């Protein structure tokens, strides 16, 4: 959208600065990508080599990956690591998919009620939703933890998914999208005999698709990376998501940088794939999501 603007004609000012811009941007790009480059290179190094400044491994090895995934023993200790890396992968994805699906669904329902239906007290309730958005997460963590303790939700999947299934932010975001859809469509559908559900499902939801995609990505990202809540909710490493698992890995094998980096690469890789695949939707969606920061 931003990029499309200047395609037609280039004025002299642009041409003169073209090279400067390209060079500055490329150097900045190199600086931003260096930590990633080092991460990938360290994950292909041997133990002996990982502590050298050399970026290019002299004897590249891919054995760090099977070691972290627990299919091969550590060459030095001849023991398999005490990790459940594959399990953590699954947990992260399962928790993220579950809470994203539920959150987008409940947010879409609520946003429809707040934007397309008329009922008494609507604006008051919505203001209440908005007001809670500025309350720091830590304020809610303590009472929510207490609630989880009394519900016996500690160390369960649903204890991680259900509290993440509702969000004032998602409701706010989708309401904003739905408000921009013309109400004339509802009226037309009503005249044709459609009920509220049909208006929601057949008229509003398809038109709110960009908003739904944006919210899905933002929520998925947040859930995949969530750390605080699983950290306090779980003490069984069977249920750890990747974020908490990485912490365990780092505290037990933190000295073995090459293993840690192999794990980091595997952690970040799915995100980079998602990012590359959805890059088109992301910019507009994330600008909207900028409210959340």
């Amino acid at each position: 959208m931003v990029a499309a603007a200047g395609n037609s004609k280039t004025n002299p000012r642009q041409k003169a600065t073209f090279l400067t811009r390209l060079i500055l941007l490329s150097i900045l790009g190199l600086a931003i990508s260096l930590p990633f480059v080092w991460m990938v290179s360290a994950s292909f190094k041997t133990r002996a080599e990982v502590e050298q400044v050399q970026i290019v491994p002299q004897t590249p090895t891919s054995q760090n990956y099977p070691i972290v995934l627990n299919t091969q023993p550590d060459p030095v200790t001849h023991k398999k690591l005490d990790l459940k890396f594959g399990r953590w992968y699954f947990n992260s994805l399962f928790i993220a998919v579950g809470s994203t699906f539920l959150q987008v669904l409940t947010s879409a329902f609520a946003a429809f009620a707040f934007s397309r239906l008329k009922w008494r007290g609507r604006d008051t309730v919505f203001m209440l939703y908005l007001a809670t958005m500025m309350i720091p997460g830590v304020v809610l963590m303590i009472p929510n933890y207490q609630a989880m303790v009394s519900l016996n939700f500690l160390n369960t999947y649903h204890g991680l998914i259900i509290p993440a299934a509702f969000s004032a932010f998602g409701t706010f975001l989708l309401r904003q999208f739905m408000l921009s859809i013309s109400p004339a469509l509802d009226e037309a559908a009503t005249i044709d005999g459609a009920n509220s559900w049909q208006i929601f499902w057949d008229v509003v939801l398809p038109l709110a698709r960009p908003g739904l995609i944006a919210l899905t990505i933002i929520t998925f990202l947040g859930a995949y990376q969530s750390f605080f809540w699983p950290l306090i909710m779980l003490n069984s490493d069977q249920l750890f998501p990747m974020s908490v698992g990485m912490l365990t890995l780092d505290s037990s094998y933190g000295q073995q940088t090459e293993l840690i980096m192999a794990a980091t690469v595997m952690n970040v890789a799915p995100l980079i794939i998602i990012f590359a695949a959805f890059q088109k939707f992301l910019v507009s969606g994330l600008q909207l999501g900028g409210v959340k920061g």
Partner: protein
Amino acid sequence: MKVPLLEERAEAVQGKAPNGNSGKPARRRRGSGQTAAALGFLAPNLIGFLAFTFFPVLFSFWMAFTNWSLKPAVKFSYVGLRNFTDLLGVRPITDGSPGLLWEYVFCGALAVIGMIAALWANMSQWKGTRLGGAVIALAGLAFLVIGSQQAIQGVALAGIVALICGLTAASQDADFKPGVGSIPGIMIALGAAGLWQMHTAMEKTYEPTDNYFWQYFYNTVFMMIGIPFSIGGSLLIALLLHEDLPTGAARQRMVGTAICLLLGLMMGGIIWTLGNPNAGLLCALLWGIVALGIGFNVVAFRTLFYLPTFTSGVALMILWKALYNPTTGPINLGLGALYHVLGIHADPPHWLSDVMWAKPAIIIMGVWTGIGGTNMLLYLAGLSNLPKELLDAADVDGAGPWHRFRHVTWPQLAPTTFFITIMSIIGGLQGGFEQARVMTSGGPAGSTTTLSYYIYNKAFQDLDMGYASAISWVLFLIVFVATALNWKFGKGMEVD
């Protein structure tokens, strides 16, 4: 947070909607059935909202007035305001001197109110703000000199911030006459001077009942030093990115990309075989990025710059922990090599394990993560909404790039900058938990513990839920001030 605007827009949309003859009966029919439907649609979300947000807020507030603890030995009781007085209060070391205490509190309040008033004065363009800015700049200079002479990091940095803010206000296009707008500046200067003057006496007479809180509050504020760098960097990147690079037609682009790739391979290969694989790889990488830029234009760079934000989380913090490793990390290996070349006989900083360097290390990581993130996207949106006539007019007037930026782009972007700043401050106040938990355990010597990590420790290590709730409400109050300022002055900013 932009409710009024949204309401207006909704009404505008509804107003435009065709209100035909059939509209009225249809609407009445719908109106009666809609409450039930709305309840149905709202129910799943509302139940979750009440259960996980609304009641917890009330519960947390109530907890802040109790000694609620997960330790079985502690008997539950209401403690009134004691959590708050323990947190914010002071106790006399020797005799105490209420007069001094009140004066100290008064000066603190004067400085804080002065800061809010200064923002107010600048946003509503009161008369005399230029003089006020100059006063603030002078006070900042004094603090900078004192702080660097006595090697107090915090005082010197506060001085720098005041100096920058003051100079910004003092360089506006207005006359130097005194006015209402000068008062906030004088308030800040007087308050800060008073605090500095009484500081030593206060330390001898009183000590805070919770010394940690003030230390961690200081840490939290200190970590926000990264914000101006991050915002400045985002703006710079957005300025470089917001227009397409004139890379020509598709065929030219393909040729350009191919040439760059070829050059990269050749130069990289030559340097590599000459015995410096590192430099060879970096050179090839740089050419590769240039090739990407020519092939995919600004989208390539935008994607690259956004990557750290998108992948940020525990994994990247562990990556940075490895980068910062004082003996085996690439940063210090590189610095060591650099020192060797320059002939400096010193150890590179020990980063995360050094009290002096732990905070800067986390700040640098934060700037790297956030520089091409959401802030950059917001600036890009702001730049694309810039009225083209203004820039053309500036061109006609023969303004250079700097003048065009200073007098057209920067003022036009002011709402975006304000919004980003406030959002960064709100985020900064609540931030630092993951970094502390993953990278430093809050150390060394508590130097990277922020308020959110303190709350976590109080609640989930000491199991002192009541006290932790009290801290979280104090944090909320500070965040609320920032949010309120955003409501008051950020009206022009709508994110879409």
